[in-house]
């Protein structure tokens, strides 16, 4: 197990450094320079331009900038946003909980609905329910979620007036940020109604974000269950006279869950991508919206740091899933 752990972890280090190289040079290929962008239409004199380039370190050779960047990364300095003049890491950490809260809720919805739907579809293979689940999940998988979000806003917010259109919480509440997770913070604060307001704001975005993972989880659970249900040990369990609940819930599900957990883990990357669109539609103050805004205002350092941090998070989660997989399935460890 230790060897398996070390191999997997050692594979992550070069990936991480490759990633810094990738993001660093990619970001520097973006047309237009940030100083010009900050100056806007008024323009800036050549002397002032050179001075500002020097202050941001943009006039040094690329490799020197890169070495400096890596050095800074190792001390936890992910750069300073050109627009807001604050540390990228601080900005990221301030916005990260909002994205995590949204993603966790979306994943929760996806698993809570997708898992039972997939199991039931597999058990009742070929039934109307099975066909409906498969049709729904393929539709969900094909969904342009930015459009789906707008349609849900149109129905639930505009027509029915059930949910708010944007933001994390009503402007009437002020909640002291303790954990950054509004659901927890609003419970901790003594503002009555704050928690309900936070839940209200969270429902629609997390439904939208959960659409694709839900489809994937349902499909994966169904096919994993179908595979397991055809195994000999299931027939043995049935032959022993165990009830269907025990056979499906205990013998089949435990083995079917292994690939499902992997797929759930791999959805984390998808969730971040989906969060970019979802947060833009619902004006959710998280990482996704921040990244898109950084692109539009050509904030190199924010973009660089942000992408690196998001990618690192995805890599770390994937690594954890990998290790968990090894823990659950001993056969994997030897390969």
């Amino acid at each position, binding site marked *: 197990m230790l060897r398996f752990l070390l191999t997997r972890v050692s594979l992550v280090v*070069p*990936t991480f450094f*490759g*990633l810094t190289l*990738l*993001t660093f040079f*990619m*970001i520097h*290929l*973006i*047309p237009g320079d940030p100083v010009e962008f900050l100056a806007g239409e008024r323009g800036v004199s050549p002397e002032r331009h050179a001075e500002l380039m020097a202050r941001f370190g943009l006039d040094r050779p690329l490799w020197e900038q890169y070495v400096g960047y890596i050095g800074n990364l190792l001390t936890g300095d992910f750069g300073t946003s050109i627009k807001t003049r604050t540390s990228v890491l601080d900005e990221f950490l301030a916005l990260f909980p909002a994205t995590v809260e949204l993603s966790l809720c979306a994943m929760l919805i996806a698993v809570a609905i997708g898992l039972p739907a997939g199991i039931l579809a597999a058990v009742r293979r070929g039934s109307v329910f099975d066909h409906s689940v498969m*049709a729904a999940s*393929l*539709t969900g*998988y*094909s*969904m*342009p979620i*930015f*459009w*789906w979000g*707008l*349609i849900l*806003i*149109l129905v639930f917010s*505009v027509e029915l007036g059930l949910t708010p259109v944007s933001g994390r919480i009503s402007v009437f509440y002020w909640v002291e940020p303790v954990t950054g997770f509004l659901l927890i913070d609003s419970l901790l604060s003594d503002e009555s109604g704050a928690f309900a307001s936070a839940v209200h704001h969270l429902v629609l975005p997390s439904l939208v974000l959960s659409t694709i993972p839900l489809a994937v989880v349902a499909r994966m659970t169904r096919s994993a269950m179908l595979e397991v249900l055809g195994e000999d040990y299931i027939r043995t369990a049935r032959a022993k006279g165990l009830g269907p609940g025990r056979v499906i819930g205990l013998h089949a599900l435990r083995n079917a869950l292994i690939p499902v957990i992997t797929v759930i883990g791999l959805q984390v*990357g*998808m969730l*971040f*991508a*989906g969060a*970019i*669109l979802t947060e*833009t539609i619902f004006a959710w103050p998280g990482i996704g919206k921040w*990244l*898109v805004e950084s*692109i*539009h205002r050509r904030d190199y350092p924010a*973009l660089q740091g942000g*992408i690196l941090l*998001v*990618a690192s998070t*995805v*890599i770390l989660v*994937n690594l954890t899933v990998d290790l968990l997989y090894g823990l659950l399935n001993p056969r994997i460890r030897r390969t």
Partner: protein
Amino acid sequence: MTAETETPANVQPNPLAEFWFYFSQNTGAVIGLVVIVTITLVALFADVVAPHDPVLQNRDALLVPPVWQNDGNWRYLLGTDDIGRDMLSRIIHGARLSMMIGAIVVSLSLVVGIAIGLIAGFAGGLVDAAIMRAMDMMLALPPLLLAIVVAAILGPGLINVVFAVAIVAIPHYARLTRASVMSELSRDYVTASRVAGAGTLRLALVVVLPNCLAPLIVQATLSFSNAILDAASLGFLGLGAQPPTPEWGTMLSSSLQFLQRAPWVVTFPGLAILITVLAFNLLGDGLRDALDPKLKR
């Protein structure tokens, strides 16, 4: 078609007929195929099919609702947008763009991905490890995020979107090709043609590659839908095709402020995206089932 499957057991069925037999049993896949053929025809003949010019503005017909609503107008079946352009014509021309984006993205990423996969598979050792690490790195980034970064570097625009989405798709093909190549290389027929004196290039392109195609075809169909979806997402974020180009995602984002007053300007482009993507996913699923020998028995 069914007649051909009733051939005597000792006669090898025509592989195409056999494929069609399994494929046509999947209703969803056939529906997907029909929809795709329809969209392709509409896209090809957009100039003839579309009732209006997609960028022509009509100041007398701003935000006209679709024909089945009150105040609907037979001149504009799906209504008009905020500057009086016909929605139906824009969606039809959008189909041309989306299908083109999909086709170019898939061809580009397929060719580059296969080349990279073949090199990695045949070279092995350090080259293989280096290439695969690089591919893993690209896969570590969420695809849309990577496409956004590439689109941001290249600047917004339709052609840049194509490149951005194509680059993101490369690792999938490279990994798939490499995996198939690895499993094929140990087969006897490869050894045989090697002994017969086939060079590496011939071995790669003529001997091994055709036997790796089945998973690649499936992946190509599925990534066609991803390409359309990603391009539309980039358009929606303002990083893709720029107005007045009738790209579905761009159309959606440029009429966002009319969501409440005129829902049809948002509904129809999105529906077009959903239907197209769904059709390709249905087709991809059907192809996977029909081409996978394990599922046939």
